[in-house]
């Protein structure tokens, strides 16, 4: 696996930077867990939503940033997971672990099939086929009224329960979501540093060359696809508990657009970028829609400015400023 070390080469850096990373990580961890005692209730509400979306954005980042498969239909896994978890919680048991496991099983089955078809493609064809898959699921959610209740949506999902105790909205649910989000972040960071992550990046860079050195390109793409959908399903399942329901709109292409925007905004192909992107997205969206009738204009303007000025997204900001300083010091 000589290829592995050379591809990670960019990430390999001195011991000091590793220490800095750990320090910053620990600080962030402490701040996130202490937030319920420091911030206002509504800030916690927004943060909860942002962290759920962060899991979703990370899942897209795995597929699009690292495996190079740009999905225009990433609402599929999210919406599907939401419906499955919500239905299970309402009809069978509100136990959060059981509900999410059920959701993951459903998402796995659909993702395994959809993935087997979709990963045969790459580039724009993949993007459009992923959009098609999500739109078909959207239509199913509207039409399969016996289960989904159509456009009214799946309503009345109870509060989640964990080991027999009800998890209230607000701080308790926030802590649950934060832990899941950080576990996902850490897990993904490990996976992406592993040979598997390096292989994905090799495929992204040049899949023909990757195949020629013996990498099973299709298998790896399929794995990335399925893992990505399942993480999206996890986010969807958490969201349905937060909102106590879901609607077919959770599968609509506009939602796929939102998560794509969050991810690219945060930094496609980075590790923490999607989290930053999701948090910024949620808070910006809330402030702008509440204060401005022309919020769309400002929202769009911010994206355009960020793309032009900060090509690698929010996560690339420190590096960019670092480079700037380096340039001045010369």
């Amino acid at each position, binding site marked *: 696996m000589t290829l592995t070390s050379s591809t990670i080469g960019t990430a390999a850096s001195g011991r000091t930077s590793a220490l800095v990373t750990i320090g910053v990580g620990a600080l962030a961890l402490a701040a996130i867990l202490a937030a319920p005692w420091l911030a*206002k*209730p*509504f800030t916690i*509400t*927004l943060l909860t*939503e942002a962290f759920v979306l962060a899991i979703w954005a990370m899942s897209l980042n795995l597929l699009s940033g690292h495996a190079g498969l740009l999905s225009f239909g990433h609402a599929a896994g999210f919406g599907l997971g939401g419906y499955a978890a919500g239905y299970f919680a309402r009809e069978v048991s509100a136990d959060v672990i059981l509900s999410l496991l059920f959701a993951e099983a459903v998402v796995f089955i659909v993702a395994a099939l959809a993935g087997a078809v979709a990963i045969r493609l790459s580039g724009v064809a993949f993007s459009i086929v992923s959009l098609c898959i999500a739109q078909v699921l959207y*239509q199913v959610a*509207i*039409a399969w*009224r016996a289960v989904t*209740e*159509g*456009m*009214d*949506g799946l*309503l*009345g*999902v109870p509060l989640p329960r964990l080991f027999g105790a009800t998890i209230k*909205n607000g701080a308790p649910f926030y802590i649950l979501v934060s832990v899941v989000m950080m576990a996902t972040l850490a897990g993904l960071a490990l996976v992406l540093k592993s040979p598997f992550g390096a292989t994905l990046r090799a495929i992204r860079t040049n899949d023909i060359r990757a195949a020629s050195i013996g990498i099973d390109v299709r298998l790896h793409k399929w794995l990335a696809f399925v893992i990505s959908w399942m993480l999206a399903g996890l986010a969807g399942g958490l*969201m349905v508990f937060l*909102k*106590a*329901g*879901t*609607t077919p*709109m*959770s599968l609509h292409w506009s939602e796929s657009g939102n998560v794509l925007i969050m991810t690219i905004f945060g930094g496609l192909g980075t590790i923490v970028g999607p989290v930053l992107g999701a948090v910024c997205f949620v808070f910006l969206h*809330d402030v702008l*829609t*509440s*204060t401005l*009738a*022309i*919020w*769309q204009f400002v929202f769009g303007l911010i994206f355009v400015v960020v793309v032009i000025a900060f090509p690698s997204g929010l996560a690339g900001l420190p590096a960019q400023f670092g480079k700037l300083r380096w340039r001045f010091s010369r």
Partner: protein
Amino acid sequence: MRRIGGLRVLAAAVLAGVSMTMSGAIAGPDPIRIGVLTVRSGPSKPIGDDILAGIETVVRQRGKLLGRPIELVVEESLFNAQTAVTKATKLVQQDNVAAILGTSTVETLALLSVADRLGVPIVTSNSGSAAITRERCNRWVFRTNPEDLMSVVSLEALIAQTPRLHNAKWFTIGHDYPWARLVAGATKGVKAVQYAGEAFAPLDTSDWAPFIAQAKASGATVVIAPVTLGVPLLQFIQQANEFGLTKDAVLVSPIGLPDWLVDKLGEASTGVISAGSWAAWRTEEQWPVTRGFNEAHYQLHGRVAGMQSLQSASAATVLFDAIEKANATSPEAIVKALETVESETPVGPLKFQAGGREALAPLFLGPYEKLAAPKYGASYAQRPTAVPASLSLPKSAAEYGCRLDGTTAAAK
């Protein structure tokens, strides 16, 4: 959050602060905050504009509540369920509103699931979905507008009073929403109706030609259109005209047309009969409260009070009366007062059905026509005949599946 009269409130707050620091004098009473959750941007904004305008007019007419000023806190719902939940939470957690007004079906359905968590009364005036006060009813969620099933029941009255609808062949063109299917199903069940077929269009339909073609092929002479109010309904009516469908068939709108839409349609609106508007400003010819409201509305907003303005104003009137009756702003006290309050509103005298959450609201049937002389800036309007709720709503809430005791027990 856009505050109405924000500057004035700010100035008052600054003055109060200054006077407090200077002399320790007592500041004015805290305002009572009322949340308004509706759509504030995009093509559906005119609906939200009317809803907000109606509530603003009532606030202006009232001035004060329990001796305290009323402050409206307006939030954008984007007509999206997820956003509506977040913004309603914001209204409760951050703005401490006493109640929420202004919601439509999308928001109300979403809020039903979290109503127990929000813990404030929600009085909706623009939600057609029958389920909201039937099988899904919740102790926190009240509705002042008549729901879709009431509209359908009143179809028989409409057919009886309209010669053009006698011995007609009916066809449904609707959006693929559960409420549209409900309207279609119920229409089929009406005794006097000979049913020719139905078609449900995808929600993002902009070209209605395929569905109009189906109606034409069926030989329908009446087309009932449970289509979302706003741009889609406007496109549908315009294209029905374009294809000459309105020449062969009468269009029946199960929930009426918003007046801003009537204004845009102009002459085309005269081919439409409403099978149950939630309000009609020409009720003022019989009911002086409506006239007073219409004049205040015109003075404040410079346009005619539309269907949604009249309805949202009625919801606001009922809520404000309940707060005065309770002589308190605690959520529990307001809910309790709402259950028994009787109000004189712009749609007529209103109270909620005992044991339920649906107001005994009248429906307004009848065609749209050109006015002899424009009034309040309107040239076309509905000629309404009121059908009382006693004819359209089952006698008791339990009869249509609303069991509040059960949900209350579950919530506690």
